[in-house]
């Protein structure tokens, strides 16, 4: 009987070797798949000579969680930093060439030149041109910001759609894992899939996971809102097709709990997008509005006791001069047609005053080289005024300095976001590497295992043939 038992042991060795080879092959095949966890074939002996191969999956929950949170932070910050880059380019232009600050500087210079030669209407026309550039900068800045908000809004909608889809997929994979674990089948592939889905979900929203019995997983946001518990919870959002200054964006709900926009560092794409749409761009719009208000105020015609009246720069509420933050003023501001030669206006009004009636005329003699008002206008651009604290820059400053501060404010936000994005990217790359080292496949290792297996297989096969020969010899002898 011992020969036939040797034969069956050799048979079972062949079987377990081929099983292990199968696992090795699978590992090698998925060596470059970042979502794949190495399978470990463990041979367990349960009876004398009988071996069973149990497939295990390499897991490092700690590293995986770190990687998830690093992914959230990175995707949030990178959205923020690229969004701020876009805003900076759209509103201020390359090297701030299209910014309100640059336009106001040019206006100031043109005004200075005009004040030196007030009798020359051509020089006056350059002031109007410079003013037109300032208006264009503010108008197009407003358009760019609102278009940016609408674009971000649609990105939020896309993100929410993806999130819902990912959660639905998660639900079916999780169900398969629970069922498989209960019946004791190998659920490694499903676990890989679930981890991959989790990584994708974490890019949108920072998540915390809890494992329950039977490998059942619960996902909550780091804020504690349930996203998945046996069934996927709905993420809802109603996108707005277009944005106007002062319009509030729609809220994102996860499981009917509103997602609050953050300030400072954003974790997760959704938080970054919300911060851009409801924070940064709204503040920037307010700053542009305040710059517009500053310009209207600086160029207003004054004739106490009469109320100040809008001069070179005007708006929908003219002839009144806006006294406080007006939403969307930067989009409304325009050149007063009375001054603009292109619209049949008279440049000399800038020098003389009186666009709002004879009471406002400063140059009562009507002389051609009256420069006092022009010099005063230049001074007014440098005089401090009070700006609304909602615009993020509280200091009382001149409209010229304020427009420069607005650039400083944006660049500060951009610098922080970019630095932080770089750090988070490095963190995400490092944690991904660590995770891959802990749970990934090393082909060399697998190949050396393969050599072992080959030898085992050869030895078993040799045993088989030896036993066969021995049996043959025995049969021949009989």
């Amino acid at each position, binding site marked *: 009987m011992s020969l036939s038992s040797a034969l069956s042991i050799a048979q079972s060795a062949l079987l377990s070797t081929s099983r292990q080879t199968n696992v090795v092959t699978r590992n090698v095949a998925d060596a470059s798949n970042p979502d794949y966890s190495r399978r470990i074939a463990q041979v367990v002996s349960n009876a004398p000579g009988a071996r069973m191969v149990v497939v295990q999956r390499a897991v490092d929950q700690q590293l995986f969680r770190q990687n998830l949170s690093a992914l959230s932070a990175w995707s949030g910050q990178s959205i923020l930093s690229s969004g701020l880059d876009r805003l900076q380019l759209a509103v201020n232009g390359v090297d701030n060439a299209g910014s309100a600050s640059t336009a106001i500087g040019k206006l100031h210079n043109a005004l200075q030149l005009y004040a*030196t030669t007030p009798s020359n209407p051509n020089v006056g026309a350059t002031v109007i041109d410079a003013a037109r550039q300032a208006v264009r900068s503010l108008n197009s800045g407003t358009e760019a910001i609102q278009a940016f908000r609408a674009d971000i809004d649609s990105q939020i909608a896309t993100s929410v759609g993806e999130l819902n889809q990912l959660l639905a997929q998660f639900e079916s994979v999780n169900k398969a894992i629970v069922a498989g674990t209960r019946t004791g089948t190998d659920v490694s592939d499903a676990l890989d899939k679930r981890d991959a889905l989790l990584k994708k979900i974490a890019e949108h929203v920072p998540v915390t996971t809890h494992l329950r019995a039977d490998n059942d997983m619960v996902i909550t946001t780091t804020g504690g809102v349930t996203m998945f518990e046996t069934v996927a919870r709905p993420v809802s959002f109603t996108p707005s097709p277009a944005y106007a200054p002062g319009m509030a964006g729609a809220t994102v709900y996860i499981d009917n709990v509103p997602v609050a926009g953050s300030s400072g560092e954003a974790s997760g794409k959704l938080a970054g997008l919300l911060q851009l749409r409801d924070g940064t761009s709204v503040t920037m719009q307010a700053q542009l509005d305040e710059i517009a208000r500053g310009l209207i105020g600086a160029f207003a015609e004054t004739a106490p006791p009469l109320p100040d009246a809008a001069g070179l720069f005007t708006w929908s509420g003219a002839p009144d001069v806006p006294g406080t933050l007006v939403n969307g003023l930067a989009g409304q501001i325009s050149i007063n047609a009375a001054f603009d030669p292109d619209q049949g206006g008279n440049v000399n009004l800038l020098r003389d005053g009186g666009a709002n009636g004879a009471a406002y005329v400063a140059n009562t003699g009507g002389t051609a080289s009256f420069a006092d008002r022009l010099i005063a206008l230049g001074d007014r651009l440098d005089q401090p005024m009070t700006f609304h604290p909602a615009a993020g820059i509280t200091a009382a400053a001149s409209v010229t300095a304020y427009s420069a501060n607005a650039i400083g404010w944006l*660049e500060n936000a951009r610098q922080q976001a970019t630095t932080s994005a770089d750090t988070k990217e490095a963190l995400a790359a490092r944690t991904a590497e660590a995770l891959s080292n802990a749970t990934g496949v090393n082909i060399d290792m697998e190949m050396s295992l393969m050599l072992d297996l080959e030898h085992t297989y050869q030895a078993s096969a040799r045993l088989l043939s030896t036993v066969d020969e021995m049996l043959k010899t025995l049969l021949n002898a009989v």
Partner: protein
Amino acid sequence: MKAVSVSSAAISNAMRYSQTRMQVDLVKAQKEMDSGRVADTGLALGARSAQAVNFHRDLDRLNALVDSNALVSARLKSTQDSLGQIVSVTQDLVNALTVAVAGDSPDSVTAKSGSTMLQSLTTILNSSMNGEYLFAGTNTDVRPVEDYLDPASPAKAAFDAAFYARFGFTKDDPAAADISAADIESFITDLVEPQFLGAGWEANWSNATDQTIVSRIALNETTPASVSANNEGLRKAAMAAVLAYEAFSGNLGEEAKSAVARRAQALAGEAIADLGQLQSQTGIIQNRVSEASTRINTQIDLFERHIIDLEGVDPYEAANRVNDLMAHIQTSFALTARIQQLSLLNYLT
């Protein structure tokens, strides 16, 4: 089981992250080397960008001020030249009148010197620069003075009317020869003087305003930067010339003529003194403007240095960085290639 594990994916991706970072840095360093400024000022300066923007804007403004100061200087220079010419023609008149007072020259010569002086004065006062009349005050688009010798001149008409009103005949009338020195002197004081030194000047002579052009010459400094034809010295010069011309072109007697000549001579002398003062005032303003420009140029240098401090990069440092990065990138390429070859598969047959 393995104690220390490294995955194949980690090995082949090891260089990837640092590789991209280095390439991003390389692009930046190249830009910095080319421009001498940081590649992205906004990112490099953050909140301090406002400062950089302010510096740039102030620099532009200062440059604009230097440009506009050049205009102001040119105007003042022309004004100064014109004043010099006026002084010189007034001096000629004084000389002619000195001879006339001594009775050594024919009437026509003295009258001629008066009319020449008037013509020169009118021409000089009406001189313009850059489309602006120099002596017009702020009313630079209107000729400051009309030609007195023009028959339609209101100033001439006013003088003739005053003469007729005082004496009952014109100066060409034979009766004019009998006017006494005292009479003519009182006529000059009572009727002629108001036409020049009083309200008559602005009514009949000048379209200029008393207010002169004010210009900003530094960020917070303004100065009057022109001379008005209403200046007293100019009025006196004009009055002296008119007196000389009118007295010696009519039928006035010797006694009256010499009284007028004396008066005109005194006036012209006063005019020269006044004009001298005006010249020195203008010179002071010229000096202020040029000093302001010098000051601004110093400021411009200072601002430029500040801007370089903020935005500039050391080109040597940038060049070194480019070289370092290129060496690093090459090393990492070489390593990647070697690592790719490093596989057990090569040794399995």
